[in-house]
C-alpha cells in the first residue's frame, strides 16, 4: 500500500494550522484592548481634574478616537486599531501635560499674586513702623526735655 502524501484528515490539519496562525492575532487583539482600556481609564481620571476645561477639545477628539478604536477592534481590524490606539495614547499624554501645565501655571499665578500682596503688606507695615518710630522718637525727645527742665528747676 502506497503511503499517503497527506494525512487522512487533511481538513483537520488545515484547521489546526489556521488556528495556530490566528492565535497570535487573537493575543495581539487582547493586548490592544488592554492598552485601550488603560488609556481610557487614565483619560477618565483626567476628566475629573479641575482644569479639564483647558483640554476640552482634546477630550472630544480622544473620545471619538476611542469609539473608532473600539469599533475597529470589534471588527478585528487590529492593524488599524493599533494606529488609532497609538494616537489615543499620545493624546492621553498630551492631555496629562496640558492639565499639569494648567495646574502649575494657575498655582504659580495665585502664589505670585499672594506674594505680591504680601510684599505690599510688608511695605505698608514698614512705612507704619517708620512713622511710629519717628513719633516715638519725637515723644521720647519731648519727655526728655521735660525731665531736663524739671531737673534744671530742681523739682
Amino acid at each position: 500500500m502506497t503511503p499517503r502524501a497527506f494525512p487522512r484528515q487533511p481538513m483537520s490539519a488545515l484547521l489546526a494550522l489556521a488556528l495556530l496562525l490566528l492565535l497570535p492575532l487573537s493575543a495581539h487583539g487582547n493586548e490592544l484592548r488592554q492598552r485601550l482600556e488603560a488609556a481610557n481609564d487614565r483619560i477618565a481620571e483626567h476628566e475629573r481634574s479641575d482644569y479639564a476645561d483647558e483640554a476640552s477639545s482634546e477630550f472630544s477628539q480622544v473620545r471619538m478616537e476611542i469609539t473608532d478604536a473600539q469599533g475597529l477592534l470589534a471588527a478585528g481590524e487590529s492593524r488599524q486599531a493599533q494606529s488609532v490606539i497609538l494616537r489615543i495614547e499620545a493624546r492621553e499624554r498630551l492631555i496629562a501635560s496640558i492639565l499639569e501645565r494648567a495646574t502649575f501655571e494657575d498655582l504659580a499665578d495665585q502664589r505670585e499674586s499672594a506674594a505680591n500682596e504680601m510684599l505690599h503688606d510688608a511695605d505698608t507695615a514698614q512705612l507704619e513702623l517708620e512713622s511710629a518710630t519717628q513719633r516715638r522718637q519725637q515723644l521720647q525727645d519731648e519727655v526728655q526735655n521735660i525731665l531736663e527742665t524739671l531737673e534744671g528747676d530742681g523739682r
Partner: protein
Amino acid sequence: MNHTLNRTVLPLGLLALLFASACGGLPPMPDNLAQLDSLRSSATGALLRVDPAEEENLNVRELLDLSVENLQRSDVFYERAMDEYQRKRMPEAELAARVGLMYFRAAENYARAADARARLSSASAQFQTQIQRRNDFNARLSSERELITLLAAVQALFQRNEELRRELATLEEASRSETRAVYAIQEARIEQRTAEGLKAEEYATDLLREARQLLTRAQTRFDDGNLDEAHEIAVQALDAFRRASERARPRFMSEQDRLMRDTRVRALFEQAQQIFFEGARIDARGLVITLPDLFESRSAEIRSNRTYLLDQVLVLMREYDNLSILIEGHTDDRSRVEAAMAVSQTRADNVQNYFLQRGITQSRLNTAGFGRESPAFDNRSAEGRRNNNRAEIIFLFE
C-alpha cells in the same frame, strides 16, 4: 535637557534633510511632519526656560523628566515618520508625524509646567520671605506703639503736673493776697480798739472818722474780691487809727491821771494788775480785764480749767459792788461773720450766768457780742486765735 535636545534633534533633522535631497523626487512632506520638523529645529525656547538652579527642586525635576520622556517618544515617531516618508508611504508617515507632534507638544507642556512649578516655588519662597518681613515689622510696630502709649501717658502726666503746679501757684498767690488783706484789716481793727480806748472819738474825732471810713472801704474792697486794693486801703486805715491814737493819747493820759487820783479807782486797777498783769488796763470806759482762751473754738462753752479767771474777777466785783459791769464776748476769725456774732453773744451770756449763779445782781450786768470784728490778738498764729476766743469784763467808771 538642552543637551538632550542637541544630541537628538539636530543630527536627526540634518540626516533627514540629507536623505531627502539624496533620493530626490519625494512627494511634498505631510503637513504634520513638516510642522513637527519645523518645531524640532526651532522650538527649544519653552523647553529650556527653567532656571538651572530650580532643577535641583525635586518637583521641577520630575516634570522635566516627563518632558524629556515625551520628547524622546516624539523622536521615535519622528524617525518613523521620516522613514515612512522616504519610502513614500504617506499615510503611515502622516500617522507617525501626528503622534510625534502630540508627544512633542506634551513635552513642551511639561516644560512649561516645570517652568510654572519653578515660578510657584520661587513665589512660595518670596511669600514666606515677605510674610516674615511683615510679621517682623508688625511685631516691632506693636512694640513701638506700646512705647508711644507709655510715653504719651508720661507726657500727659507731666503736662497735668505742670498745669496743677501753675494752678497751685495761682491759688497760693491768691491766698497770699487774701491773707495779707485779712490781716491788714484785722490789724487796723486792733488799732481801732486802741484808739477808741484812748477816747479818740472825743479827742481825735476827724482822724478816727477818716480811719473808720478807710476801714469800711477796705472791707468793701475785700468783699468784692479786690484783695490788693483792700490791703492797701487797710494799711491806710491802720495808719489813720495810729495817728488818731497818738493824738488822743496825751489828753487821755491826763484824764487817767485825774481818774487815778480817785483812790478807789486806783486801788481797783492796782489790784487787777496784781491778778491779771497786762490783762488789766484802763480805757475810756473804765477798767478792762481780758480773759483770753476762755472758750473752745466755735463753742460758747466756758473751758472748765479757765473758770478760776472768772472767780478772780468775781472777787473784784464783790469788793467794788457799786460799779456796773459790761461783759463782752469775742471769737477768732475761723468762723463766718454771722456764726461768730451769735457765738460771741452766747459766750457773753454764759459768763453773765456764771456771775448771776454766784450772787451778782442782774442790774449790775450787761452783755454784748462782737463776733470776730474786734480781735485783741493776732489771728495769724494759732496762739493768737486761741486767745481771741475770749471774754472782756469792763468795770464801768461812769
